[in-house]
């Protein structure tokens, strides 16, 4: 695999993420697989921000501890990251403010020549990167042009000037016509929901889920999606339930704290049988924790959140195409079974950027047509149906009333404390659970890769699969990574572990939550590699820890 790692660093407010995205899109447009990871503290101005951009000829979802090209907008970037530079690595820096060796660009005079604004210093750095990479200007200018939607000519002129002023040090191939779509995990989830037929997205801002809200707000007019940001997460989820009652497919997004506020209404959706999608993007907790850093510590919370017992569908996509496919699927399942679906993401996945190599083009690949279940008159919202699923209609409906209820209720939706209604309700929910478990325990529910004959398997879920892939490749190990987590796809998992004797769980938590879930299903984990520092594992450090375990036997 040919690969390059680029790190761009500067102060918060310097537009580091924006510049990183342009670099990522540029290489995605040149036919490379790209993964971008952004690291920023929870503040608006000052502080140190950096993006790591991994560019490779194979799909990637993790970064290395070493870098090939360092783009430094300030001196602190040199101080913090210079030591990670590979032998032969190159530093490209703003020579007006940074002192070091490498390719210095005098940004201020360059911008002055073009009448550019200070933020366009990033454009100059990107141009210099292209020059150092040895990319021909004729090849990159059309790709770059699509990235600068405002002041395109000016940005291109600055990039070109800078590109031609540096010495080419590498010769990065750019001869394929292939190009990959490049979006953040949040945007891939949004695209999947959109493809799945979403009508409304309602959210209260909370890192790291806000990207979905911004994505939908930006495309609301072109897609007719209702986008709303109300006063609290409690309002968010209940508005979504109101939308669903009126027949609109709604999703909400939040992180752990917001999800805590939503749990009362989650339980309401369980009792009242209201279809709903919740995107839960985890971050380091407990409580406020580290808002802009990662954790995989809400798995069990997502499985069991809400009082009482009711079915739910929980998925944790780990790649762009999984996020697209399973987000659409989550919406479909929520409406088919009239239950809440939860898409479990995390900071690393939500705010990381990923190229996708296989996107199901037509949504019927993902979602079968669900025929309207006929109902008998007078309509009863909770009438008995196959697998406990009642015919679902929405008001207004001439001559019929639609009554939904958070109380235990009879088939008409009228409150009841009669044992027979309580038993019928519980049985209905259980029937739905059983049918759901059967339908969702499919081949795609558990991702298996790596060496299929290895007796040692690395077990992971969600964003850690990106790094686990590379470690497994390097050591010839098997990877087993459930995407559907609840109801747990027991049959598929059992098949996946055939021949495995050693199960190493890799999870960004202190307790190994997947282990608890697996134990309940009768599966064991033999060793765990856990992490609570809020940072995704770099490839080399995870490799080291897996090696220690394997050789320590």
């Amino acid at each position, binding site marked *: 695999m040919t690969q390059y790692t680029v790190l761009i660093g500067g102060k918060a407010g310097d537009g580091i993420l924006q510049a990183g995205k342009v670099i990522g899109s540029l290489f995605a447009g040149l036919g490379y697989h790209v993964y971008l990871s952004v690291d920023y503290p929870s503040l608006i101005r000052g502080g140190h921000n950096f993006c790591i951009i991994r560019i490779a000829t194979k799909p990637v979802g993790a970064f290395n501890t070493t870098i090939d090209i360092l783009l430094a907008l300030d001196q602190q970037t040199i101080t913090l990251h210079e030591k990670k530079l590979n032998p032969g690595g190159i530093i490209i820096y703003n020579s007006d403010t940074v002192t070091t060796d490498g390719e210095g660009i005098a940004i201020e005079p360059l911008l002055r020549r073009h009448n550019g604004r200070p933020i366009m210093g990033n454009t100059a750095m990107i141009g210099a990167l292209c020059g150092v990479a040895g990319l021909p200007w004729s090849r990159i200018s059309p790709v770059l042009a699509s990235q600068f939607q405002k002041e395109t000519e000016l940005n291109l002129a600055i990039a070109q000037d800078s590109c031609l002023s540096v010495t080419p040090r590498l010769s990065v191939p750019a001869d394929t016509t292939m190009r990959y779509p490049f979006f953040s995990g949040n945007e891939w989830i949004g695209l999947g929901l959109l493809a799945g037929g979403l009508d409304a997205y309602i959210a209260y801002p909370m890192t790291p889920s806000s990207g979905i809200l911004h994505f939908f707000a930006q495309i609301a007019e072109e897609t007719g999606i209702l986008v709303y940001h109300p006063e609290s997460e*409690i309002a968010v989820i209940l508005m979504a*339930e109101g939308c669903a009652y009126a027949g609109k497919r709604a999703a909400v997004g939040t992180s752990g704290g917001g999800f805590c506020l939503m749990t009362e209404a989650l339980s309401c959706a369980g009792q009242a049988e209201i279809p709903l999608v919740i995107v839960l993007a985890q971050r380091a907790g407990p409580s406020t924790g580290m808002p802009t850093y990662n954790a995989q510590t809400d798995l069990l919370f997502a499985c069991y959140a809400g009082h009482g017992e009711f079915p739910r569908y929980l998925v944790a996509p780990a790649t762009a195409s999984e996020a697209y496919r399973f987000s659409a699927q989550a919406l479909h399942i929520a409406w088919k079974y009239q239950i809440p679906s939860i898409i479990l993401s995390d900071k690393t996945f939500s705010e990381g950027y990923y190229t996708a190599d296989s996107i199901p083009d037509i949504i019927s690949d993902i979602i079968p047509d669900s025929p309207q279940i006929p109902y008998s008159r007078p309509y009863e919202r909770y009438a008995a149906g196959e697998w406990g699923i009642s015919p679902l209609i929405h008001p207004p409906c001439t001559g019929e009333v639609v009554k939904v*209820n958070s109380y235990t209720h009879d088939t008409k939706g009228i409150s009841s404390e009669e044992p027979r209604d309580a038993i019928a309700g519980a049985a209905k929910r259980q029937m739905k659970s059983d049918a759901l478990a059967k339908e969702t325990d499919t081949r795609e529910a558990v991702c298996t890769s790596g060496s299929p004959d290895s007796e040692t398997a690395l077990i992971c879920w969600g964003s850690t699969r990106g790094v686990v892939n590379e470690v497994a490749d390097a050591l010839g190990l098997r990877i087993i990574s459930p995407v559907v987590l609840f109801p747990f796809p027991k049959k598929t998992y059992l098949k996946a572990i055939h021949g495995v004797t050693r199960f190493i769980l890799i999870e960004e938590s202190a307790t190994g939550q997947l282990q608890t879930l697996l134990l309940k299903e009768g599966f064991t984990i033999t060793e765990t590699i856990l992490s609570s520092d809020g940072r995704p594992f770099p490839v080399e450090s995870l490799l080291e820890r897996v090696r220690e375990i394997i050789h320590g036997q």
Partner: protein
Amino acid sequence: MASDRSLITDAKNTWCPGCGNFAIQHAFVSVVSELGKEGIPREKMVVVSGIGCHAKIADYLQMNSFYSLHGRTIPVATGIKMANPDMSVICFAGDGDLYAEGIGHLVHAAKRNIDVTVICHNNRVYGLTTGQYTPTSPYGFRGRSTPRGIHEYPLNVLDILLSCGATFIARGYSRRMPLLKRIIREAILHHGFAHVDILQICASFFNLTRYYDELVYEIPEENTTRYDTARELTEQWNYNDTGRIPLGILYKAEKPSIPETGELKEYDRMAFIRSLLDQE
């Protein structure tokens, strides 16, 4: 006018004898019947209730209903209205429900002028949980959670709502039926956020019949569009002291509201997604 029986379910009514809820339900059913004759069919109405004695109305009305959570009628109603602006959405809430647990939603609903109607059964005590103080109980109220009396003055919610930008504020009394019907009717027809606070007695835990009968009076209708008059009216009685209690539509104004109604457009969803995936 007799109640339209077709609007009542066969659920067993468990409100206490003498409860003000009967009057509120009766007034509402009359209004729904009337509006039906005027071209607003009952199918296009949804009742959203909270949790408490008041909320049983969702079970008793043979109408579309969402029996929601304690204090949470407003976000549910907002979601329904935004999803389908053709529906008339009416929240029935209690004073414990709406003014304690749900006051955040109430304030924001008034601020955004969402086109829903909120009817608060304000009996100034928790009934279903057997007699604790609510945000509108008077100073010194002795309830089961405050046997020595509360050291808090009641919230004057109508005054708060006026400050929040509510465009329809009314007060009714469960023992003034013609006025109650008129207010509920006007509230439903109002374009924007309409709030109706209904004084009702709790026959079991807080019977203020004599107090209300003595102090309430109906205001003349012509003053309703003046903000300063509305302020005087909402401040005239503070839910605590004795003083005359104005009943009627205290304020009514026109302001931009949501949801905006516009023409429905057709969108080619998949073409849009393809263009995004292609462009990147």
